[in-house]
């Protein structure tokens, strides 16, 4: 790790200078050119402090609508923290200070009058390890609709069936909907969690290294689901594996030490990165 860092240092003559240039140009590009549609999530000058550590440093980013955006970067660069500010899960931790804006459909979600439940309902979260609720397969998917007021049994069954079909789990579990969710294999559990998130009809899917605990076959299944789901949802994935970003990303954001270094379309980032740090990371000089 240390020798790698030293090498990076050498590459950049004046890091701050380069950061500035890069950021200005990138912001313009982001807003004006890259998207055909308007951004779904806009992050503006976001600073996050966790127990006085400056975790996110002045991050500005536009997440495009109905596309897969992958956030890449080495461990501890603030990817997950950024993701957690999107659905305001971060504020449950102790000693957090959040400055700046996160706009979802143009509304600042850290604003005073915003109902946090509505924000979260808009976003399905897929965590690192699948985390089913301690109930049956059916009840897991029905949990969200139930808390949002769907009581009709037939309607619930419809929702559960549709969402389980959407994640390709229906055929595997239709005989044992009443069985505990914990009995499923870990890959099935992750798809169940995705179905559970989809059941509250979100607009955005957030994935926090959603495949890192899965075997290659289960990973492929989840990735294919993301590819088919991006027609209807905006998908933001934090990922540790560059290959995954290469396979499925439409847009890539590269973060390093709490700063957004570069953001652009996947082809641009992978074939012609503008920033030296990005080039090194993608080239595998450090990870």
């Amino acid at each position, binding site marked *: 790790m240390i020798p790698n860092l030293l090498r990076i240092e050498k590459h950049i003559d004046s890091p701050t200078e380069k950061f500035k240039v890069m950021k200005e140009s990138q912001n313009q590009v982001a807003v004006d050119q890259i998207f055909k549609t308007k951004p779904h999530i806009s992050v503006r000058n976001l600073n996050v402090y966790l127990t006085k550590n400056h975790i996110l440093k002045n991050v500005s980013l536009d997440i495009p609508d109905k596309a897969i955006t992958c956030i890449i970067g080495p461990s501890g660069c603030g990817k997950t923290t950024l993701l957690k500010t999107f*659905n305001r*899960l971060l504020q*449950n*931790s*102790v000693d957090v200070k959040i400055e700046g804006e996160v706009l979802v459909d143009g509304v600042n979600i850290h604003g005073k009058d915003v109902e946090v*439940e*509505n924000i*979260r*309902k808009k*976003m*399905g*979260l897929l*965590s690192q*390890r699948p*985390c*089913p*609720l*301690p*109930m*049956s397969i059916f009840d897991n998917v029905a*949990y*969200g609709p139930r*808390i*949002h007021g769907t009581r009709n049994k037939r309607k619930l069954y419809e929702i559960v069936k549709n969402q389980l079909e959407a994640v390709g789990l229906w055929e595997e579990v239709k005989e044992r909907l009443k069985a*505990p*969710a*914990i009995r499923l294999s870990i890959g099935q559990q992750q798809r169940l*969690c995705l179905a*559970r*998130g989809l059941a*509250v009809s979100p607009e955005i899917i*957030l994935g926090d290294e959603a495949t890192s605990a899965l075997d290659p076959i289960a990973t492929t299944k989840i990735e294919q689901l993301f590819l088919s789901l991006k027609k209807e949802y905006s998908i933001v994935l934090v990922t540790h594996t560059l290959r995954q970003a290469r396979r499925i990303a439409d847009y890539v954001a590269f973060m390093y030490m709490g700063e957004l270094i570069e953001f652009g379309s996947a082809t641009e980032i992978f074939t012609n990165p503008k920033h030296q740090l990005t080039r090194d990371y993608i080239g595998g000089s450090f990870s």
Partner: protein
Amino acid sequence: MKHFRVKKMEEKIFKALMMAATMIIVVSLFMIIVAVVKRGLPAMSWDMVSKIPGGGFYIGKEGGLLNAIIGSLYIVIGSITLGLSFSLPIVLYINLYLPEKSRLAQFTRLSFDVLFGIPSIVYGAFGFTLMVYLGLRSSLFAGILTVTFLIVPILIRSIDEVVRRVPKEMMDAALSLGATRSEIIKPILRQVAPGIITAIILSVGRGIGDAASVLFTAGYTDSIPTSLSQPVATLPLAIFFQLSSPIVEVQDRAYAAALILTFIVLVLSLAGRYYSRKFSKNKI
């Protein structure tokens, strides 16, 4: 090579020590049960569990302990219900609503740790003072109240331990579906249901067998109470009073009462284990 032999030796010695510790405890507990069964079983009869004391019961004649059996069950059921309806909200409040490392939560935990260690006679005395202050006489209600004081620390500390171990990711998963804090209580309770049952078993054991807390507060009577304001007999006091009798038959009945008490605790524990297993099938 020698080193290896020493290691093996160590392993053997520690294994022997652990086995010895286990055996000493198991054997002595077993001896208590043998003593209870040996003296109590001959005194057992159907009358013992189906009749209230007759006129000559305390000199070794007709009647049984139904008053104490029902009384003990009343007290334990009442105090578990009352205790749970206070401890569950307290535990959920300090775990879900108070921030991590909250002073109030830490203070609450500390005070229940201290209350845990207070001898039951002190609760009895406190209950008695409270009774006098409120102008109550010894009654089923006062007994339930005092036993509740006794078991609430057990309930809270043991439920708190399991609620704290609920994975944070699980709460995040429910929250990210748009659940409010009160809506995530349901999955949390499902997750900790086996732990709650363990807490109940522990407190039943403590509450049903405790004599000192009910001595001043619940009183003693030969009849089965029909209202909360009437005094009530309990098995531990039945044991206590009959054991101090000079008549051997009556003393034997004390052992019979102890046998009944042990049996009740056994049945309740087994039932608890059964339900605990049933509830844990969905546990993550």
